[in-house]
């Protein structure tokens, strides 16, 4: 369905793919000005920087505006059900460890219905990259609070605000064992591309929270470009230092918080030591 710039050709020389090679011809459903356009470009740039080929990449998503992204790439895509993208992505990677797996979605998909899988994916530390396009709202369903929404944000579903403290994804990711934790901003496509590329290259579970404004339901987020700032310190591989730092995070620090050294979840290839027929012997009466 997607037209790839990599149709098989007669020439034998392999060539590195450009970012354009990773984008499909499908027109996104996103609103003009949506931060996700920029994130899509950053992802394509990152894939190119990492020297990947579209057929070697699987983009897995759940449900929401940002979860429509797989079809906008020329890679293999899996558009699953709400909140379960990390589970599907884990299945893909465990089945085919040689593929690059990018899991993507929004703050509702990832932190609300997907919260349990987020926690366990960080714990499990399978080598894949998880990008959350966080706009502090449910956009697809037209404007309800998400776990990262401020407690006093008024909406039809929660008039006067939820009154519930916002979820802090970087804290949870770090505490749960994610091996790479970063924040990016869609308003800086090149910087975001660098962070995504670093995340892909980093072994284990890499988590990148990308602030990506929703211009339709959170028009005030156009002001995010004034609020984001580079993190005041460089990345660390010390989880304790990262933990101390993240507890004073204002939610707008951009950069890599933590690039750790945990061993990733052991993946294949798995050698067979027994023929299937040899399993029978254990049943002999």
């Amino acid at each position, binding site marked *: 369905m997607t037209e790839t710039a990599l149709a098989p050709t007669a020439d034998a020389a392999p060539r590195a793919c450009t970012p354009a090679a990773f984008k499909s011809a499908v027109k996104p459903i996103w609103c003009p000005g949506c931060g996700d356009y920029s994130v899509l470009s950053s992802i394509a740039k990152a894939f190119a920087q990492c020297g990947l080929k579209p*057929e070697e990449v699987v983009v897995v998503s759940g449900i929401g505006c940002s979860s429509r992204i797989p079809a906008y790439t020329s890679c293999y895509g899996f558009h*699953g059900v709400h909140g379960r993208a990390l589970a599907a992505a884990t*299945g893909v990677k465990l089945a085919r460890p040689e593929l690059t797996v990018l899991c993507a979605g929004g703050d509702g998909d990832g932190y609300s219905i997907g919260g349990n899988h987020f926690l366990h994916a960080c714990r499990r530390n399978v080598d894949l990259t998880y990008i959350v396009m966080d706009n502090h709202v449910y956009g697809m369903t037209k404007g309800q609070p998400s776990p990262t929404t401020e407690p006093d944000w008024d909406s039809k579903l929660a008039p006067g605000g939820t009154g519930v403290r916002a979820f802090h994804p970087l804290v949870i990711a770090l505490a749960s064992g994610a091996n790479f934790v970063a924040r990016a901003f869609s308003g800086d496509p090149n910087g975001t591309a660098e962070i995504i590329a670093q995340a892909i290259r980093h072994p284990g579970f890499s988590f990148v929270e990308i602030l990506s404004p929703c211009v339709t339901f959170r028009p005030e987020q156009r002001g995010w470009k004034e609020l984001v700032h580079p993190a005041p310190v460089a990345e660390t591989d010390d989880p304790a230092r990262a933990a101390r730092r993240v507890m004073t995070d204002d939610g707008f620090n951009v950069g890599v918080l933590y690039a750790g050294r945990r061993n990733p979840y052991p993946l294949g290839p798995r050698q067979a030591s027994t023929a299937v027929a040899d399993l029978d012997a254990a049943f002999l009466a």
Partner: protein
Amino acid sequence: MDATPSGPADAGVSIAIAGSGGAGVMTAGTLLLAAAAKAGAYGLMVRTSGPQIRGGEAAALVRLSPRPVDSLGDAFDLLLALDWQNVQRFADEIPLAATSLVVGDAAEGDPPQAYLATGARHAPLPLKAIAKGIAKSWTNMVALGVAGACAGVPRDALVAALADTWKRDADALAANTAAIDAGFAAAADLPRIARLPALAPCPGRWLVSGNEAAGLGAIRGGVRFVAAYPITPATELLEWMAPALAKVGGSLLQAEDELASINMIVGASFAGVPSLTATAGPGLALMTEGIGLAVGAEVPIVVVDVMRGGPSTGIPAKSEQSDLSYAVSGLHGDAPRIVVAPTSIIDCLATTQWAVHLAEALQAPAIVLSDQFMGQSRAIVDAPGDAGYRAERAVAPSGTADYKRYRDTPSGVSPMAIPGTPGLAYTADGLEKNEAGTPSSGARDHRAQLDKRARKLTSHDYGDRWADVEGDGPIAVITFGSSTAPAREAIARAKEVGVQARLIALRLLAPILPEAFERALAGVRRVLVVEQNHGAQLYRYLRGHVDMPARPASFHRPGPLPLKPAEVADAIVAAAA
């Protein structure tokens, strides 16, 4: 194909061994079954215990026969109790008749009234005192000797079974061998019960549970990835598969919940590896959305549901056939899926293997309806041949021109591109789509894709495996799963009183094949649907899908107790009236 169906196991014997936790009841039962296998008998053993996590009262329910058995009979010939602590709990599960014999240890008090009230004969034996008289021996080994002697299991077979599993020192083995002998001798004075005839040993048979058989069937079929969450009574299936998969180059992941499990296997299968999970009713309920995703995105998966008492948390450690409705229709939208059900413990192997083949060939989810009775009971069976089913997915080869993942085809099956293949990348989607896979809300696309997904299941040739049709007669007894064996025995009994009935033991529960039913019901005057649930689920389902002769009848009863041949036989005779 499977072993030919057995006739009535009239020459069989049923023994229940019971006692408090720690008395070694299960060990005695397991050894009795193993010994019977060595002696050339068939049989099965059901375990039942109190609710305690460990050390609760327990009963081993063993049925032995010269012919294959797949169910318990109407009553037990012998109830042998090491003690009576809380053993009255099992009264419903250990039905006795006047011809039955209750043997307890007089030092442990009288049998509970629940057992004596049946009119069964009663004879005590000083089991504990006998064991005490042999240093280093255990009471349950004395009991094993008693049980073997009463049932006609040769002494040498009992001793050999003990030696096979013995892990301690040689002195203790000698002592417990002596205990078996002492029990064997002590039984000589007991009133006689039905017993096995002399049999020739038949090496090469298997001792296997339904859960293990299902796991092996999955691996034989080609499954190499499992993601799952523990749940009674499916956990042993997963625990058997974990090391077995590793040996053959696969892997099993314990997921954080069933929501993760089902989505992991959809992802793994999308990526190209045949995948499976196993669960029970509550877990199946959680997996529903993920199963629907496999339908919509056309991804093969196998979900084994080891049914237990429902609804909700229900009765976790007991069997019931009450997930049928859910399995055949429990998805939102018009969502065709494959549902198969093994008819016996050993059939769990070939039917799960078949499910893998069907799921992969039809790019759809296949639910295997096993149940706690088959899953957790262990049977002596003929070594099964290889049914031959394998995962054979239609894969789009590299270089396919104008590839469209969801292209409509006459069979409804469209080749899958496997990630890694250049030039064929697509996005699998739960959203409705056009042939290229682009999301679509259009009427034509929706209709075309719905037709495709339905047609691919209904146009497949399922062969003879869809049901076992046995015998002839104007009455048709239709059943599935673990109700098959009692129904078969019941038909044999009905024949003895002149009522001819044929058995239709269904394996394929979805899709329903109208022409196959028509052929199977040719000449049938009356249908009796037999099942172990409260809502007559199979009866109602078939009435909606199959043309049946006037006044179809239903015999249905919920768990936790298995259907008895006698009650089904009564229903058959009544249906003939």
